[in-house]
């Protein structure tokens, strides 16, 4: 049997699937459930310094090729969130804490606090508006990616994984910036900026008008991003975007990812998706003559 265990910057995973940030991870009970359902790790909802309500509904629209959302980062704030992390950990979950802030100091402060809860790594959600950057996201400004990563690295002693945005010309440059800032790994990709309109109502389908596209639609964009990034950096990469099967996961692994995150596919396949992906990966890897996940990482670059 193929050995599905893998390891990213020292974080050991029983299998290379993780829950993507923003799905069933606002509460400890749900994170525990997802871990028990088979995920190798769970990434928390992105948590900031203060509680945040997010945008008004409609916040989520199902489209034919994916999901469009503008939930607007609702979260109870890092102080209250301790309770949720602890509850997930009590169920044995490997937890990665996703954080955001309005500037580098806030990122560092939230990450430092989060790291005291016993999470195994910090994920930096850089897809937030960047105050200095005139409305661009942090992840659209190379210097900010480098500096924010460095400031967070300075205050925590667990691995730090900046999560990059695909809404850029050349995502690999941002991965290089993150690596320069001391990142221990890269998570790619966050959602694509997108919009749906409901013609019958003559208006955008989301209350926020714009949103982020996830699911099958963005998988080829994510696979390409991971492939590009792996040509430019040495640190491990976690692939995310449209993973819904073992075959999808292997696209990312062979593009160079060490693990994958799964979000939107929970909709179509339920919480069993983590176990199913793991099982499907194992059988495809076996057919292709691999004994373990690390052997398959990046083979499509050959």
């Amino acid at each position, binding site marked *: 049997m193929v050995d599905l265990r893998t390891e990213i910057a020292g974080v050991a995973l029983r299998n290379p699937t993780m829950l993507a940030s923003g799905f069933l991870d606002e509460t400890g009970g749900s994170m525990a459930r997802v871990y028990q359902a088979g995920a190798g790790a769970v990434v928390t909802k992105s948590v900031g310094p203060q*509680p945040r309500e997010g945008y008004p509904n409609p916040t989520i629209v199902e*489209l034919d090729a994916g999901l469009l959302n503008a939930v607007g980062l*609702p979260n109870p704030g890092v102080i209250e969130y301790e309770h949720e992390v602890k509850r997930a950990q009590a169920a044995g979950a490997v937890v990665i804490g996703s954080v955001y802030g309005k500037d580098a100091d806030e990122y560092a402060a939230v990450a430092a606090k989060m790291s005291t809860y016993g999470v195994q790594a910090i994920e930096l959600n850089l897809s937030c508006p960047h105050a200095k950057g005139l409305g661009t996201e942090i992840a659209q400004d190379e210097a900010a990616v480098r500096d924010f990563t460095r400031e967070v690295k300075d205050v925590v002693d667990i691995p730090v994984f900046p999560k990059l945005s695909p809404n850029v010309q050349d995502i690999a440059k941002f991965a290089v910036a993150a690596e320069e800032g001391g990142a221990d790994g890269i998570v790619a990709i966050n959602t694509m900026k997108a919009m749906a309109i409901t013609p019958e109502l003559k208006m955008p389908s989301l209350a926020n008008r714009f949103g982020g596209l996830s699911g099958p639609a963005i998988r080829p964009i994510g696979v390409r991003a991971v492939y590009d990034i792996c040509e430019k950096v040495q640190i491990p990469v976690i692939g995310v975007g449209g993973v819904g099967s073992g075959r999808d996961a292997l696209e990312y692994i062979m593009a160079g990812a060490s693990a994958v995150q799964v979000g939107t596919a929970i909709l179509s396949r339920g919480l069993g998706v983590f176990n199913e992906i793991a099982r499907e990966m194992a059988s495809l890897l076996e057919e292709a003559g691999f004994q373990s996940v690390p052997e398959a990482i990046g083979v499509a670059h050959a």
Partner: protein
Amino acid sequence: MPRIQVVPLLEIVRETPTTTTYRFRGDLGGKPGQFLMVWIPRYDELPMALSHLGAVKGITVRDYGDATHALAAFTAGDRIGVRGPYGNAFQLEGPSVLAVGGGSGMASMIAAIEAFAQQGARVVTAVGARTAAELLFVERANAAGEMHIATDDGSRGSAGFVPTLAEKLLARESFAQVITCGPERMMAAVVDLARQKGLPVQASLERYMKCGIGICDACALDDKLVCWDGPIFTGDQLAKSEEFGRYRRDKSGRRVPV
């Protein structure tokens, strides 16, 4: 194709001074107790139980906050968006049912009351409201079986809260099961009552929802999701709950008292 259907409102029926039914045709099924996510354009998208399951569906909405107040001004021909139905349904488990509804909670139960009666069960409904004018669906409940009323102010039926009425009915005769929907503390009382008698009980919960489809975690209750595992939970599930009757989540995901 998008999952949202935009439908014109065919008929608008004032049920009580604060509660209105909106009827529309939609290409959707629906079982008793299931809900829709209802988009009130420019205002909000909210979960609403299907109060009418036939060819012409219906939701029955209490004018409560901004969005439902905006909806109260809609007229026939205006359009709303609906998606669903989502969630589980009330299950008939024996020959006789006590249904205990409080306020707009009757909107979630009335389809079950009618369906259970049609399946041959004896259905006794205890309807509660603040005052007589706010009693919801008493005619439909009456037509489906026996109907009893409690009002807080005593303006119709027995004076007091509906769990007290339910207690009397449970003392009077033996039921095979209890179903309930209404304010959460009321439901908690009804669930307790039923469990003390050893009766199976199902309660339909309300939680703030965003997605309605089990991914956003807004509607979490312990390690369950009201939109996906619920909205109907059994007494056994609720007895084990740390949060039922005590905590809900606000829009930011913080635990706050019910």
